[in-house]
């Protein structure tokens, strides 16, 4: 057992069976349907039976009035470890961290981690007003109709402070769309040009249409089990070198120009025994391109404010100098509620287990998946990250 600080490593537990329930723009099904399909795919993909899965971690916004417990009866599963993680863009990382420890401690043998949400025609609008008390009291009455205005403030501020241009953000979006063209489940199947990005209709200045994700329905999932079990089952697996999680970091910053990663990156890389330069691809949490840039800075790929320079010096496609969001990210795949918090993780597991649906990053050994979410007022409260590795990494 290796520890970094007081943190135990994860070397005896692994991630297997990355699955996706293909996204649709709108569904008349409830979230329960998507959870069921995800679980079904996890079983099929792993060759396990329902009784083999004795732990469930569920991330979903739209189960109400149910929570994870209701789903056990709904899906007819008996588990001895249960978790409900409605933390949006951070739910994948948080679910992963808890499930790893549960399996390591022997509280569960196989934990199914699922992020799933439906999207009815009017559900996005309805969910906005009930997202949080602060949003209902202090954001929603101002007409923003969701996080667009909040991220417009951040984007505008970032551009002014650090000299980023629309073209810089556009380069990321265009590259991700290129990645998405190789991924069968992406909602967007058409090439995006920089001109189209720049000329798209204004949503909340300076944010335009292709800076925003498309709300949709879908699910993502993976299984956590011991390495021994995965090897016995003959399942390809990814390992976890290190993780971090932080909530409500830097509450006194006037505006969010950094997240909790700044507090945790030393621990994250120290625990993994790697440097940022060792990472072969990054799955950022790309709800808006400015957040991808902030994550790259906070996670040590460049210094604060050097994001624009970094973008200009790199290419971000799977065959580029710095592959990010290799399946297209939310900006091109779509944002299926809490499944968005799993999207990058599941794609990272695929890349590292050779189960690619998207184009593969050549010889990828180490990948970084980032979680970010829960804009309850003016900023995202949750941040997390995980350094994953190929079985031999």
């Amino acid at each position, binding site marked *: 057992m290796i520890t970094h600080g007081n943190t135990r490593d994860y070397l005896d537990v692994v991630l297997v069976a990355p699955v996706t329930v293909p996204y649709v723009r709108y569904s008349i099904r409830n979230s329960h349907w998507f959870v069921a399909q995800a679980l079904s795919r996890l079983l099929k993909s792993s060759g396990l039976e329902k009784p083999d899965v004795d732990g469930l971690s569920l991330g979903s916004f739209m189960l109400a009035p149910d929570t994870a417990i209701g789903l056990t009866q709904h899906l007819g599963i008996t588990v001895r470890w249960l978790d409900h993680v409605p933390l949006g863009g951070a739910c994948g990382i948080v679910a992963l961290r808890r499930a790893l420890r549960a399996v390591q401690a022997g509280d569960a043998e196989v934990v199914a981690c699922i992020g799933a949400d439906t999207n009815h025609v009017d559900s*996005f609008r309805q969910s*906005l007003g009930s997202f949080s*008390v602060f949003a*209902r*009291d202090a954001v929603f009455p*101002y007409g923003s109709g*969701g996080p667009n205005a909040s991220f417009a403030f951040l984007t505008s*501020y970032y551009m002014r402070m650090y000299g980023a241009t629309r073209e810089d953000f556009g380069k990321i979006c265009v590259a991700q769309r290129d990645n998405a063209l190789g991924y069968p489940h992406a909602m967007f199947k058409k090439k995006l040009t920089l001109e189209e990005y720049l000329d798209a209709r204004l949503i909340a200045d300076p944010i335009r249409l292709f800076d925003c994700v498309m709300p949709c329905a879908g699910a993502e999932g993976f299984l956590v089990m011991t390495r021994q079990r995965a090897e016995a089952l003959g399942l390809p697996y990814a390992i976890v070198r290190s993780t971090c999680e932080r909530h409500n970091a830097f509450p006194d910053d006037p*505006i969010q120009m950094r997240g909790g990663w700044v507090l945790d990156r030393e621990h994250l890389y120290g625990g993994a025994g790697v440097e940022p330069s060792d990472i072969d691809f990054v799955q950022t949490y790309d709800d808006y391109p400015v957040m991808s840039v902030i994550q790259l800075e906070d996670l040590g790929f460049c210094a604060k404010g050097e994001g624009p320079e970094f973008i200009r010096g790199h290419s971000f496609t799977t065959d580029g100098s710095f592959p990010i969001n290799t399946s297209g990210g939310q900006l091109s795949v779509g944002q299926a509620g809490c499944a968005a918090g799993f999207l990058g993780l599941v794609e990272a597991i695929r890349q590292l287990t050779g189960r690619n649906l998207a184009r593969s990053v050549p010889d990828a050994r180490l990948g970084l998946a980032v979680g970010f979410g829960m804009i309850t007022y003016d900023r995202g409260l949750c941040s997390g990250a995980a350094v994953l590795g190929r079985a031999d990494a």
Partner: protein
Amino acid sequence: MIPPLVRPKPKNPILRTRLPLLPPWARSRAALGLTAAAALGRFELQVCADCGTVQYPPREACHRCLSGTLRWREQAGIGELISTTTVYHSQDSFFRERVPWHLGLVRLDAGPTLVAHLHGGCAPAPSRVRIGARLDKSGQGVLLAFPLGEVPHMADDRQLREMTCDPKFRKVLVTDGKTQVGQAVVRALIAAGADWVWVGHAEPWKKFAGFAELEALPQVTLLPLDLTDSGSVKQLAGEIGGKVDILINTAEVHRAHGIASRSGVEVARAEMDVNYFGLLRLAQEFGPVMRARGADGPSSATAWVNLLSIYALSNYPPHGTFSASKAAAFSLSQCLRAEMRPGGVRVINVFPGPIDDEWNQLLPPPKLTPEALAKALVKALRDGVEDVYPGDVAQEWLTRWQESPKTLEREVSL
């Protein structure tokens, strides 16, 4: 630069009147403190009673020291506009009809970061701004970032005008032109740019003092209106109800009596008949049509003003029956306010202390001049507040009443 408001064209009567929508009105109970202060024209935030930390958004406990005692305190509102955006696409129906809509993110010098509606006169970020609280169309408190100083056509800002009831270019009904207060209100409205003022008088066969001067004003039309007569109210509503943007009920009967100083109920009944039932008759005839016109173009129905009395809060025994009638009217106005809210029409209550007129002859100064009252009323419309207590006496009563209604009751009956 704020483009000056232009006089709206007469409405094409064939066109459909748009139904009023409201901005999102749901709030937590804690957040209603912002509304309560904004109703008085004040910007207040919660301040921790133990460590002094200023809080926003409104909450249940101090985010520094976890104290459960947070008190609403008036704020200077000065801060830095750190970022701005213009919303072009909204999921909300009210704002969908009103985009583009300007918003600002402001770091108050007092600490918290605020999302605020952005007045068009603010300089681009970064710049210094002043936060004020206003009631929006739903009657809930919201924050607005203003430029530090005055800018030309400040009141004409499109977003600000959604939250105020400025009489400029609007059509107003003043229910009684016979009193000095009624006449002062008419003059103040015209000075404030009202386009058209209908003035009621209960006894059209009589020429009251000041009649000729009123009649000579080009904006004024005198019309018969007797609030004690349901038919009269109904008839006038049928004639002009669909055009009134602001209704100001100045009609009142005021006699200086308690209970024992007079026998019989005739005087009290006359007071109630105008002060309470008159309001009820007006509200039944004019309320629904004004509520339906809450989003009728640039000069939609916007406000209903009641002339109440500070004695509505606590009975003043020398004017005991008058006080009771105003208390009844105050209570009814709260019902009217609730019923007008779906149309976005603001109900403004004016609570003056003694007005310098013949029925307050025996009261010592200070007394409120009709002109001062009219000025306060127009200011209330411009600021879009719900409750206004003009003059020193009203302010003093209010302070005493807020501190202890029971103490006030004993003080005024000594």
